[in-house]
């Protein structure tokens, strides 16, 4: 690496993509810097993955206490100190973001504080200092998309960031606009904390991108728990009045409109790339029609020494995709043979049960021309699930009949995200359903449902009748 630049690599944004890139670059001996204008850790650690999971856990504990009476454990009056809940969640965030800052120091990553903007393709201004870099990695992430008529005030009409601040008292009636992952996670939290929650989704299906059967199984459990949802429905406007937020809701098929009143409205209708203040125009870096910055398998943009990773590089906008791309970009810059060549990127809705999947849905596999076989095994037939009081859900495997190759795994289950490790490794290793079926899975574990789903592909599951 030439020494005429201040840094071998300058990363813009310290979200999961950016901090992985910077740390891996430093591990490989590069002089690395990472610029951040807000908080180290990005959306994920500060206002995304982590605080939602903290609140989800808290909500699940409230629900678990209710179900404890099934086995004879009862409690006197239950009290939730909302301020303490928010503080606990913030404490976890602080610990993790502090950890990343510490890792920067320990790895000798130069942490640049402030807004970064390009001066030219090799020069970046951060705050009021200017730095040159042989390579630049753009990792500026994404921000919530806005929707006309629903103006976020972060008090009555909130986006995901506002919804992280649990109000006291818990809102009695809540509407979530958008039927994606974020909406379901918040619905689950607030439903467990005592809100009556309704979700509306414009499209004909919730959780777009997930397997249709899995979504159905998932939706069944959500409904059972009290979360209502309507598809092909949209919100036209939301107005705060004395008795709550009046929302005009429209059935997009019939055109029928009605007004409902809620105490709080969450708007979660997608995310868009964040490029404000970056001054990207002074470079030749190309964006696509939606504003994202396309990158190749090495995470290079059309300008060879400028890389794009994470949310700003496009879908799926997930932290683990950002992390992988960050590591790949750093390794490529260090001259390593890295590529973002993942067979599949997993997705998870961290509710209870979780919806967790990786690889092709049954429909996607059919569309690609595979002769598809599936194997399904219900959690209700799992001894472990019974002992955990968590029998909702199933594991569904999508397999190519000709080669027995595993194409996709779709899990609706408690701890589903923990079982995803096996599914992801299986896809990356090119495993067949037989490989999974022949692997001994410890008893009694939820993971046995993965084994049984693989057996079911061949009509040889033991604990169900194979049709």
């Amino acid at each position: 690496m030439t020494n005429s630049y201040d840094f071998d690599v300058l990363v813009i944004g310290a979200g999961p993509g950016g901090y992985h890139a910077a740390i891996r670059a430093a591990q490989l001996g590069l002089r690395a810097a990472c610029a951040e204008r807000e908080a180290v850790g990005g959306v994920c650690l500060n206002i995304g993955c982590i605080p939602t999971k903290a609140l989800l856990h808290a909500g699940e504990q409230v629900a678990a206490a209710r179900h404890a009476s099934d086995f004879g454990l009862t409690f006197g009056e239950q009290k939730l100190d909302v301020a303490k809940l928010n503080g606990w969640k913030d404490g976890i965030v602080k610990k993790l973001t502090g950890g990343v800052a510490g890792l920067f120091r320990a790895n000798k990553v130069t942490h640049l504080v402030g807004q970064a903007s390009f001066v030219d393709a090799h020069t970046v201004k951060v705050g009021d200092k200017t730095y040159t870099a042989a390579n630049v990695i753009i990792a500026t992430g994404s921000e919530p998309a806005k929707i006309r008529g629903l103006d976020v005030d972060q008090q009555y009409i909130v986006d995901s960031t506002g919804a992280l601040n649990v109000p006291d008292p818990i809102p009695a009636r809540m509407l979530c606009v958008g039927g994606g992952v974020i909406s379901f996670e918040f619905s689950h939290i607030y439903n467990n904390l005592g809100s009556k929650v309704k979700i509306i989704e414009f499209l004909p299906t919730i959780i777009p991108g997930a397997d249709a059967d899995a979504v159905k199984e998932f939706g069944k459990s959500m409904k059972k728990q009290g979360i209502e949802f309507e598809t092909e429905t949209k919100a036209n406007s939301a107005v705060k009045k004395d008795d709550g937020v009046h929302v005009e809701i429209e059935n997009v098929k019939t055109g029928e409109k009605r007004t409902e009143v809620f105490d709080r409205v969450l708007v979660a209708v997608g995310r868009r790339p964040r490029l404000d203040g970056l001054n990207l125009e002074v470079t030749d870096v190309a964006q696509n029609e939606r504003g994202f910055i396309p990158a190749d398998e090495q995470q290079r943009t059309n300008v060879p020494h400028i890389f794009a990773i994470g949310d700003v590089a496009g879908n799926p906008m997930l932290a683990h995709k950002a992390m992988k791309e960050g590591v790949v970009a750093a390794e490529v810059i260090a001259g390593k043979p890295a590529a973002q060549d993942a067979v599949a990127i997993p997705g998870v809705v961290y509710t209870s049960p979780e919806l967790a999947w990786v690889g092709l849905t049954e429909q996607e596999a059919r569309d690609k021309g595979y002769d598809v076989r599936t194997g399904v095994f219900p959690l209700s037939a799992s001894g472990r699930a019974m002992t955990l009081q968590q029998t909702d859900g199933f594991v569904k495997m999508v397999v190519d009949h000709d080669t027995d190759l595993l194409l996709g795994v779709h899990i609706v289950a408690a701890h589903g995200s923990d079982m995803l490790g096996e599914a992801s490794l299986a896809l990356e290793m090119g495993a067949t359903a037989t490989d999974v079926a022949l692997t001994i899975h410890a008893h009694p574990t939820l993971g046995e449902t993965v084994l049984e789903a693989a057996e079911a592909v061949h009509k040889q599951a033991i604990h169900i009748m194979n049709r």
Partner: protein
Amino acid sequence: TPAPTRNAGRVPAVPAARRLARELGVDLAQVRGSGPNGRIRLEDVSAHAQTAPAQQTSAAPPPAPAP
């Protein structure tokens, strides 16, 4: 000559390949694995089974001359 296998060593072969080898009567130790570390995959066993019998045939006594 192939590197000596470690005393502890095993030929890494995926479970489905191990089963296919038993089915076809193939000795895994004779199979060249195409995966990293010589890991034996399903296709390696079928490929071996297709070539190995041919080798055996050539080693077998020649057929009796036609009358």
